[in-house]
């Protein structure tokens, strides 16, 4: 509750918010700059972009949404969310050999094609 914080505490928070703000702007510039570098490996390009995005998202969630100091009830709700979110993201990885590829799609014939995934 708001009354639990003294004015000094809030002023300290405001300084943190400003630091996070600049960190987010720097993160945006870094993302765009790294993208103009054109790494040979597509996996590296995607990895770096997602890494910076996850750090930025962590800063927003941790400080702006003050998740770093929340109550247990919210952590429990988010744990369930993360579980289902990750499961959903993995659904297509688990079924990748059955995915339609471009114009060709052979639903009955199972053809393992390890080179098909990750080409970009």
């Amino acid at each position, binding site marked *: 509750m708001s009354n639990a914080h003294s004015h000094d505490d809030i002023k300290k928070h405001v300084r943190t918010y400003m630091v996070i703000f600049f960190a987010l702007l720097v993160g945006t510039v870094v993302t765009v700059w790294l993208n103009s570098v054109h790494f040979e490996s597509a996996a590296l390009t995607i990895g770096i972009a997602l890494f910076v*995005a996850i750090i930025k998202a962590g800063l927003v969630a941790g400080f702006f949404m003050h998740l770093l100091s929340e*109550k247990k009830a919210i952590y429990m709700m988010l744990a369930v969310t993360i579980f289902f979110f990750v499961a959903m993201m993995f659904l297509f990885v688990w079924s990748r050999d059955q995915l339609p590829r471009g*114009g060709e799609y052979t639903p009955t014939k199972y053809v393992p094609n390890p080179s098909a995934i990750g080409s970009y």
Partner: protein
Amino acid sequence: MEIPFTEKARPDTGLYNAKVGIWLFLASEVMLFGALFSAYILLRVGADPGTWPHGLLNIPIGTFNTAVLITSSVTVVLGWAALQMGDFKAYRKYQAVTILCALGFLGIKSFEYKDKFSHYEVWLKEPVTVKHGDKEVKTDRLLGHIDYNGVHPYFWKTETLAAKKVESFKFAPDPYHYTMSPREMAHAKQESSGHAHEMMEIKSSQVKRLSAFVPAHSTFFAIYFTLTALHGLHVLGGALVIAYIWGPGAKMWKTHPEQYINRVEVSGLFWHFVDLVWIFLFPVIYLL
């Protein structure tokens, strides 16, 4: 009837009820955007090599819009902090910036959309020779802008040519195509920057397919418009709620200040989530 725990925390959760509510809502939003993100990955991984459009979005504008959203997110927390210290005037100023940023974001996004709706790809029956950067290439697929009797039309498709009885139209081809690699494309753009586009005449009988950059163009634009429009609706909704609390809803500050601060916090949580989605959308859609 009085709604319980709008100000004080419920003993078992340690939270006022609206906060539990907004987090449950955000959890469902994570799944909504997560489903569309996984659809994006599926379409992208499933695309045949060289068929996924890339490099067609305006990166400087996207970067600027990212900065606009980040700014609005920090003014939300600054406004909330000011309110906790009892400084209503400062809160009003910060949230005014938030609302302006939200409108700015939507304005810029509409400008981007408008630009896409008059940008075309044309598939030809016979290949033609065009300049890509410093190279001459023979190709049957061109990107560019249509000039028909001095106007740049929007939303034309293959059927439009017959419907409007267009026999031929002028076309200003772009010096690149997304079938190039990202590196080649960047090179071609750089080589040709500053040069005037050479107009060419295209006969309608030569056109196999014509499409503006609309959802029907490709799975890329379909998922691009789905994701960004859904995000745009969230920006609009969030801005409306924040503006209501800022304007007509501000009467509550006099009668129930604690509840008012909580409302500002909860609307802020939603706003940060919208910012968070964009933090992933921008690199994934504009850059990768």
